[in-house]
């Protein structure tokens, strides 16, 4: 490989990106050195095994990726604004929608949710950390290594360009000869392993580490949604692992699982991809449901309506999510019988989803609704997501889907589900739990302004796409001619997309402003909330709870505040905590190196990297690390300080 092939060349935009990546990296390195922050960074963040800090790192990465994916989206919308636009060429557009899709789903939505669940779940169940804190750090660094690797493709070697679905034979060497699709198979694989471990970790955490008295049917709804999501992860991600491994063999070692010759089957890929891919959309939507349940209950000042049917509906959704994958290829020529069966299973998902919508509406009933920023996102979710849901039912009807498949109608539908569902939820969760993490609230006025700009622009962006789809505009088209008549509606959509961008900029400004000026709070419970996490101090001490709480009802903290139930009984005792470790971040670095070498087929470095991974695992298994104990005196001091008393 020559150097001019190695770096992506010939595009001013890419040169600009290279320069800014180099400048930004240099600035970070110089800044850290100048302010002597390397030690701090290493001790407090890179080696941390604290679930709260890992959660924050997930959220920061996800926000960065939201902007990368958002810039991609703006570029695409700009290109489509007018017919025969020359801003992007076909190749560039193809790369952008591919990376946009992958980044948004795998490197933005999922990590944001995993970040929130890292922060919140142990707190909600009264635990001091997750079941396997070190493994949790490994999960994060694998995700991070995968994300960085994937983004590197933009400047080194060339981005993947076969769509986030990577259908074969298009994604084979024959039709995608660049290293782009190698990036796809390796980067997602590495991040995916991390996700799978997160799934295992949180199942163990939730099943084993709940505070005394917290029966399964007393868990907060967000924790329930995370538990069910992790079970989906446990069943879905191995399928992705296998599919990506087969893809890697096809692309790098000449096997022929998905090729057109020698008995390979293109549909095998489509089946494996969607057996993972459909559950994946529930992996990002169920925790969102959990977040909305918490927020809506808190700000209606009511308990969640129909708790059992909320849990039941999530269980049913998780089962059904594995039985519908073929609705992504009704048009692949299986018979009417198969299509009919998958239509029915798909439409059935609407029933438990509808149950949830009505339960939320009834939670509002007779409530005392406060329109805070997190509540606004949760309330806006209901009408917008319902549009996404009913159009989903329309798509589920096979005979009609023959006309929607691969059109802008589909693009409109899935954004109508993903944005009010997942994106609104993570923003709502972010605003809601932010004071828990940092000890102050984000500015409400700016928050509401950002909300209105985002909610309105969203509809301006995506509503026109339904009509464009029905008028015959296919997705993934980099340009169209003027006589198709697609121009005006596309222009409206583009204007909406820029509105969305403005909304997100206000949101970021809001974070910045609040860090500088927002008044700090002394009370750990700014929203008058209901669940255990709000009974801790803000910011939360390392060990979360000085005394493990005992739980009676579903809203333990609320009951505690109403005087019904004493949460903390007994005296301080020594607390056992895990030690920090540099191994996870180093392992992430080795995986990055290994993946990079694999992508380019540099076998010797790849083997060295592979051995490095094995060595790290071996080192870990011979290591004796029993963690450390926090003595009672130290707990007393910390608690007194957090209560604002002088020690």
């Amino acid at each position: 490989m020559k150097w001019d092939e190695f770096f992506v060349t010939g595009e001013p935009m890419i040169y600009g990106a290279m320069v800014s990546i180099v400048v930004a990296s240099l600035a970070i390195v110089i800044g850290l050195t100048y302010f002597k922050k390397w030690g701090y960074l290493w001790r407090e963040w890179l080696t941390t095994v604290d679930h709260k800090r890992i959660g924050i790192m997930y959220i920061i990465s996800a926000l960065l990726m939201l902007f990368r994916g958002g810039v991609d989206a703006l570029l695409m919308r700009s290109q489509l604004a007018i017919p025969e636009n020359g801003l992007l060429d076909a190749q560039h557009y193809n790369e952008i929608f591919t990376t946009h899709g992958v980044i948004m789903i795998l490197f933005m939505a999922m990590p944001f949710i995993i970040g929130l669940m890292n922060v919140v779940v142990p707190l909600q169940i009264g635990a001091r950390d997750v079941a396997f804190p070190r493994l949790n750090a490994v999960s994060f660094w694998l995700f991070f290594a995968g994300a960085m690797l994937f983004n590197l493709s933009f400047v080194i070697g060339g981005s993947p360009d076969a769509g986030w679905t990577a259908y074969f034979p298009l994604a084979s060497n024959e039709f995608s000869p660049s290293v782009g699709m190698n990036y796809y198979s390796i980067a997602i694989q590495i991040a995916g392993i991390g996700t799978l471990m997160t799934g295992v970790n949180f199942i163990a955490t939730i099943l084993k580490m709940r505070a005394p008295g917290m029966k399964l049917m007393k868990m907060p709804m967000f924790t329930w949604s995370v538990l069910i999501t992790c079970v989906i992860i446990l069943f879905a991600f191995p399928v992705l692992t296998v599919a990506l491994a087969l893809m890697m063999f096809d692309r790098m070692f000449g096997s022929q699982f998905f090729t057109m010759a020698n008995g390979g089957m293109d549909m095998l890929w489509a089946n494996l991809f969607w057996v993972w891919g459909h559950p994946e959309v529930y992996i990002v939507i169920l925790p969102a449901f959990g977040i909305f349940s918490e927020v809506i209950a808190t700000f209606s000042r009511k308990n969640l309506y129909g708790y059992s049917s909320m849990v039941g509906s999530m269980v049913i959704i998780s089962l059904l999510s594995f039985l519908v994958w073929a609705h992504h290829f009704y048009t692949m020529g299986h018979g009417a019988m198969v299509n009919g069966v998958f239509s029915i299973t798909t439409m059935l998902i609407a029933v438990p989803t509808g149950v949830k919508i009505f339960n939320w509406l009834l939670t509002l009933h007779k409530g005392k609704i406060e329109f805070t920023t997190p509540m606004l996102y949760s309330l806006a979710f209901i009408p917008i997501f319902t549009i996404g849901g009913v159009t989903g039912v329309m798509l589920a009807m096979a005979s009609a889907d023959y006309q929607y498949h691969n059109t802008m109608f589909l693009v409109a539908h899935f954004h109508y589900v993903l944005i009010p569902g997942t994106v609104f939820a993570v923003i709502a969760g972010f605003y809601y739990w932010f004071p828990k993490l940092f000890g102050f609230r984000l500015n409400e006025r700016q928050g509401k302004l950002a909300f209105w700009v985002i909610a309105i622009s969203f509809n301006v962006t995506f509503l026109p796409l339904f009509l464009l789809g029905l008028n015959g505009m296919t997705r993934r088209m980099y340009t169209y001619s003027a006589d198709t008549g697609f121009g005006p509606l596309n222009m409206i959509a583009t204007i909406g997309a820029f509105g969305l961008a403005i909304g997100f900029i206000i949101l970021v400004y809001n974070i910045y402003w609040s860090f500088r000026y927002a008044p700090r709070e002394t009370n750990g419970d700014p929203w008058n909330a209901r669940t255990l996490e709000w009974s801790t101090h803000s910011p939360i001490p390392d060990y979360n709870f000085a005394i493990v709480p005992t739980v009676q009802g579903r809203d333990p903290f609320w009951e505690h505040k109403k005087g019904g139930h004493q949460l903390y009984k007994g005296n301080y005792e020594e607390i056992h905590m895990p030690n920090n470790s540099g191994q996870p971040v180093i392992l992430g670095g080795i995986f990055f190196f290994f993946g990079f070498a694999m992508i380019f087929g540099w076998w010797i470095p790849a083997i060295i990297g592979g051995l490095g991974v094995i060595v790290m695992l071996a080192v870990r298994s011979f290591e004796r690390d029993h963690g450390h104990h926090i003595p009672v005196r130290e707990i007393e001091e910390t608690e007194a300080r957090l209560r604002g008393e002088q020690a």
Partner: protein
Amino acid sequence: MKRKGLLLAVFSALLVLLTGCNSLAVLNPKGPVAKTQSNVIIFSMLVMALILLVVYVLYIFMLTKYRASKAAPDYEPPHVEGSKWLEFTWIAIPVVIVTILSVVTVRTTNALDKVPAGYEDQKPLVIYASSSNWKWHFSYPEEGIETVNYVNIPTNRPIEFRLYSYGPITSFWVPQLGGQKYAMSDMVTKLDLVAEHEGSFIGKNSNFSGKGFADMEFEVLAMSNAKYGEWVNEVKNTAAPLTEEQFNSLLDTAKVGRQTYSSTHLEFSPAPEGEHAGHNHGGGSDDNSQMDHSDMDMNMDHSDTKDDGAEHASHGN
């Protein structure tokens, strides 16, 4: 109040959609297949609008009635666990709705899997449509002619498109005649369409297949049976046959304009069906309709009448 304005906008936009802007290709069908689909779509839109209406009415009611600013300062919301009856209702009603939609779906999906009703007694005109980067080849085995990037069909006669691909998966779609099906390299899929109106319709590939994907459009020209016969005869008498070398170099060329030949590539490069098939999906239609190419007329005169679609070939890069 801003919220209501927003909802109103959303809702009226939906109404516009519902009142059947029949300028939208899919809702302006020109044949029975697309007609069935457009009926299903409009029916489902009405049902969905009803559901939206229920949700929106409840939603607006809750938000206007129970806002904290309207409640007494000492108002303490009640603790409500749920209600067996209410929860049962919003399970039962959606189940009924899904059942209705399922019946409609299964019936129409079955109907679309065969020759459209009313045309069963006619022998369908078989046209092989194959895609290659980035063009469409149409082979008429009965007539022994082949076109590239356009297809002429007679009206009121069932057309059986047999789809396959010389590369990535593509999807054959003519919105005004009917919904799409994939064309794959290892098997042949079938799509039955009928045009009931004369006219020119846009057809396209709707499954992303790489760099030249956006240009994979073709014209479907539906004409009366008589005109169709004339056109076929004209092609047979004036167009050159397609040789294997020509076809292979055509496959290698990224983009071309319209072309017309007086023989088909099926003779030397058969479709992946019957003994040439790679696999099938176990779907309804069985594949024993092996073609016999031996009786095809290959002695056409060689006068070159490829009509050169220079303007088509020069679409943006």
